[in-house]
């Protein structure tokens, strides 16, 4: 274990606090309100087009912090490794963690590693905790969506879930498609500077549908979404048509749903489109004064349907 730390983990993740090899990271407390999150990552396969479990762990944690308007600062990294995991794979994962941390301007300051017997942990499980600071005057909350707010998304939905499904190999299809896994704190910062962003949610598990339902329920407003306005790649649409999946329920790892004061929607949209992670941003709907939890989707014909909360994993169907 000591060898693993010394020969692999420290060099890959090297940063001052990690190298100190104390039992706990010693950090300067930034002034302001702290944001604190934790998350665990189990993904199959470990390596997929556009990312891997390492990148996913960093981005997922950073994005949780970004969703409350925090500037992410420090991450912990807990690794549970399956005995027999090829060292090359571990090296790749660590390199991804390091690279993603650099891109997100965060430091991995503490960590832990455990090895479990063969047959457990699916290769690697990762747990993280993340801490960030919320700048004064920032007030982003899932409870703050107000009737009239514009709903914005920063790009194409469904890329991550379908890329992982493709690489898992269960349903034997080929397509050029990458996960959208990316750290969003920089984009969020630009958005907050451009206008009044009331609420943010990253549509990860359960997809955009879950994020919409949660926003609606937590803020006590209804949401109306213009389905044709939701950016969707042809490839993701095609996979979903073939397998009978609804792209609204497919996981994303580089997307955010924002509720923005209506007067600022154009400015915030402009800021998003000017950022590399928001080029395909779009306004997809608005909040209304209807019942909490009520999310309606208007189709191309002008007719609408109500959105259900996803229950469990979406499975391919023939019916």
């Amino acid at each position: 274990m000591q060898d693993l730390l010394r020969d692999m983990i420290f060099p890959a993740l090297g940063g001052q606090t990690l190298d100190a090899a104390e039992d706990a990271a010693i950090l300067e407390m930034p002034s302001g309100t702290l944001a604190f999150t934790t998350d665990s990552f189990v993904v199959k396969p470990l390596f997929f087009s556009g990312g891997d479990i390492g990148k996913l762990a960093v981005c997922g944690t950073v994005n949780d912090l970004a969703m409350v308007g925090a500037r992410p600062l420090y991450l912990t990294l807990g690794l549970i490794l399956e005995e027999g995991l090829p060292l090359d794979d571990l090296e790749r994962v660590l390199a991804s963690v390091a690279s993603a941390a650099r891109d997100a301007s965060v430091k991995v300051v503490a960590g832990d590693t455990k090895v479990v017997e063969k047959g457990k942990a699916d290769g690697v499980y990762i747990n993280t905790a993340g801490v960030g600071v919320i700048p004064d005057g920032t007030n982003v909350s899932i409870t703050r969506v107000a009737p009239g707010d514009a709903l914005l998304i920063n790009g194409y939905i469904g890329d991550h879930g379908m890329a992982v499904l493709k690489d898992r190999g269960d349903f034997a299809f080929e397509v050029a498609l990458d996960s959208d896994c990316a750290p969003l704190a920089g984009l969020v910062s630009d958005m907050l500077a451009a206008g009044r962003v009331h609420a943010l949610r990253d549509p990860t598990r359960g997809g955009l549908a879950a994020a919409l339902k949660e926003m609606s329920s937590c803020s006590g407003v209804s949401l109306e979404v213009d389905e044709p306005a939701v950016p969707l790649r042809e490839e993701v649409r095609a996979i979903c048509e073939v397998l009978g999946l609804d792209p609204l329920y497919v996981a994303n790892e580089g997307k955010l749903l924002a509720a923005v004061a209506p007067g600022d929607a154009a400015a915030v949209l402009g800021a998003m489109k000017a950022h590399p992670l928001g080029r395909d941003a779009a306004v997809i709907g608005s909040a209304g004064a209807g019942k909490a939890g009520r999310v309606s989707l208007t189709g191309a014909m002008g007719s609408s349907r109500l959105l259900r909360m996803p229950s469990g994993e979406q499975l391919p169907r023939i019916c």
Partner: protein
Amino acid sequence: MRYIDEFRVPAAARELLREIDALDARGTFMEVCGTHTMAISRAGLRPLLAPGIDLISGPGCPVCVTADADIDRAIAVSKKPGVILTTFGDMMKVPGTEDSLASASARGARVRVVYSPLESLAIAAEEPGSQVVFLGVGFETTAPAVAGTMLEARRQGIDNFQVLSFHKLVPPALRALVGLDDFDVDGFILPGHVSVIIGSDAYAFLPVEFSMPCVVTGFEVTDILQAILRLLKMGASGASLEVEYARAVRPEGNPRALEVMSQVFEPCDAQWRGLFTIPGSGLAIREEFAAMDAGTWEVELPEPTRSKGCRCGEILCGRIKPMDCPFFGGRCTPDNPVGPCMVSSEGTCASYYLYSESEGPDERGEGADIGR
């Protein structure tokens, strides 16, 4: 996407709705294909149709019509040591008497979701030490694919691949429904892809013997609206069988697919969940393929329980509405479904529940008429 996008023409759909309204006619029409139920719900079609035009969901998808005892058998097979049960995703959450494939899987049974029976065969080839059983559900759209897979298993000499056949046939079910005393439906929206296989001629008996209007229909909103328009017009001109889905359906169907299907399967009586046993409405694996028939295995099945009070059968026949069932919304909810109408997320009761939950008991907004 070619041959999909060109049929999604909102302006044409609006025009069809206008022409339907202009007829000023009434009618209750039944679709018997789960995919039609889904398409109608997704498009929010019901509230757009004039009052007096009702669309009701008949017994039309594997989720809805696979009998409790059949699910129990699939679960029991999955629990046998050395068995990998493979299934379409649709079946994972369907409740049997005690549990579902999903919950059995969570407790250690080896259950894998596949998109195609051929994937199941591939698993059998990769895992020679296991018995791979494919859960065969679906109508005539799917049965030829399962039959083809079994022929392929034989051709490749793969002997650890078996099938549980709970396939069902549409025309005998239609015949049984139409023959019911109080079957009060003005026409059928017939399943487009089943018809690709069996051909539109298979439904000739409906107008001829029962004066029942019917239209073989595709799955886009424009297809369904065209079917409704045609069915309403038949109210005046008389019952007949029309094919709206001509781009995919021929009068004689697909003879090759029918031939493959009949090499492996033969008709048998079958129990339709929530309904009754319909003669000749199922597919059994022929004697020559008995070695691939997992239905012959000895398994322990739980005691069947009669859910007294569940009125799915009457809902499926179009006799009553979800709120007329004593279990609706109380004992029977989407999270804890009793019968098929609530099990399927797009089933009559599940759809009605969704709308009533979102509107509240005192508000009757758009969508509240779902499930009539």
